[in-house]
């Protein structure tokens, strides 16, 4: 299911003295099965854009294609439920959305809203609780008795239980400790690979974008100013700097090494492992050349 934004602008408080545009003419196509990162500072329009992916916000100008559905500015969009089932959003601090008496019920809430039977919903919950790394007896507990990290996992299971084709993640690891962060990010990456989920990661973290994404879009003051593969995006540090963004730590480090040895490595490395291999390789070649 492709997602396509065409000339999308969005204004809050349209038609009032407080009208304020948050998005300007955004064009962005996210093909089916892509891992797309959207990067930008707070206030760059990231969170506004993500609410267009399942019709929570309707564009003030332009149109949004979500699979076969088209949401056009100025026209009433009826029956958005099918769209919302297909595009799951994990909001920032999703643990704030938990409300049921038990974890089980909370995970079942989403699917049952979309007409899934109770049995199937429960089955999904039992399966998902393991996937998010919690023991099965968690299902019968109150979500409010869990730790923050556990609540986060339950909330994620609640979104996954809808079995969406596209999953949108808004800073999914904010506030977690390093181990928790890595576990969550790896889990989403595995889901992306195994189930072919289209994944949209909205983040501040250049590091996560470098490590996981196929494509990176840069948002700046309500505009989508760049979109390309990580290699394309990170080979142009000057343009990034214009948008007050830095290269990922790993790429900056590679640049330091390259400056020191006075030659470029054969490619831009996006993970620490890759860079270590590449440096080792370059050194071996250097030695053999002598």
């Amino acid at each position, binding site marked *: 299911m492709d997602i396509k934004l065409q000339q999308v602008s969005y204004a809050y408080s349209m038609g009032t003295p407080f009208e304020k545009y948050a998005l300007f003419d955004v064009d962005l196509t996210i093909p089916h099965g892509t891992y797309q990162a959207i990067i930008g*500072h*707070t*206030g760059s329009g990231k969170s506004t854009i993500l609410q267009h992916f399942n019709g929570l916000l309707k564009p003030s100008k332009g149109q949004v294609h979500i699979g076969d559905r088209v949401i056009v500015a100025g026209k009433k969009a009826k029956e958005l439920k099918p769209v919302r089932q297909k595009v799951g959003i994990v909001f920032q601090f999703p643990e704030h959305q938990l409300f049921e008496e038990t974890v089980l019920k909370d995970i079942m809430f989403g699917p049952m809203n979309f007409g899934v039977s109770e049995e199937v919903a429960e089955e999904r919950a039992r399966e998902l609780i393991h996937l998010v790394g919690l023991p099965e007896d968690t299902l019968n507990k109150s979500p409010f008795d869990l*730790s*923050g*990290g556990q609540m986060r996992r339950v909330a994620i299971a609640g979104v996954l239980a809808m079995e969406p084709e596209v999953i949108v993640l808004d800073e999914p690891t*904010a*506030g*977690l*400790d*390093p*181990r*928790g962060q*890595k576990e969550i990010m790896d889990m989403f990456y595995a889901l992306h690979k195994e189930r072919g989920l289209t994944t949209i990661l909205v983040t*501040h*973290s250049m590091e996560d974008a470098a490590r996981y994404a196929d494509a990176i879009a840069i948002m700046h003051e309500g505009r989508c100013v760049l979109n390309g593969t990580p290699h394309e995006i990170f080979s142009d540090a000057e343009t990034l700097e214009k948008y007050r963004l830095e290269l990922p*730590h790993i790429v900056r*480090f590679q640049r*330091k*090494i390259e400056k*020191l*040895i006075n030659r470029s490595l054969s490619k831009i490395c996006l993970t*620490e*492992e890759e*860079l*270590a*291999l590449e*440096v*080792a390789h370059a*050194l071996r070649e*250097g030695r053999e050349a002598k």
Partner: protein
Amino acid sequence: MTEILSFSNVSFSYTPDSPEHRKAVQNVSFSINEGEWIAIVGHNGSGKSTMVKLVSGLLFPQEGEVRVMRNILTEENLWEARSNIGMVFQNPDNQFVGATVQDDVAFALENSGVPYKDMVERVHSSLEQVKMDKFLNHEPHHLSGGQKQRVAIAGALAMRPKLLILDEATSMLDPQGRDEVLKTVRALREEIGLTVLSITHDVEEAIFADRVLFMNDGKKYAEGTPSEIFALGDKLVEFGLELPFAMRMTKLFQENGVLLAGQHMSEEELVNDLWTSNFNK
């Protein structure tokens, strides 16, 4: 050296009467002297936050003693102890009391009955120290997370505290906000030699500390300089933390057969070592 804060054999449990009671803090001792920066690191649930509550007198230990300015912390001297300690908490929104930036900075001053003229001067000077003096009349919902945390620091500074505690003060911020706050704290250390206790799970933040306390499961697992602590390597990872970037790279280089002379906490050291060990022969 003046001792600002000390724990001696402190234990605390939230459920002391239940049979399977687990101690949130178990037999912890350490001390902070004037001018030091101590970082307490540990994963979520390692007992870090309980320790903060014991320092600020929100909780009292069941065993052991907490001393603030060499006095054992009790119900009686609690308020005096608090006036010596400034605290910045995790959630920037939930500690902003005032309607505007300057009102919030003045809050603690009002509480301790500082006269008006004195207050105005202190509010302005502490906001200058955190470079928020251009935002005097801003309301909190028009500020970024990093700015709110800097206001919170100013609010603490206005009381001229002996100790500033940062309780996961950067964990809810974006990278920009985190940089802002850490730069502010480091500048304050240089300018006025502020004593700092920071509680964090961000190892890059702990690198700047003079000493690191590594907590696991309510116990002090290790204490030492950042390089001593990070030399524990895989133990840190096992306990839910991560190694600083330069150390992770050092390890990966060595695994891939790149020659290096030693362990490194900073990138500069690592790059230099890489140069001297491999090219400059």
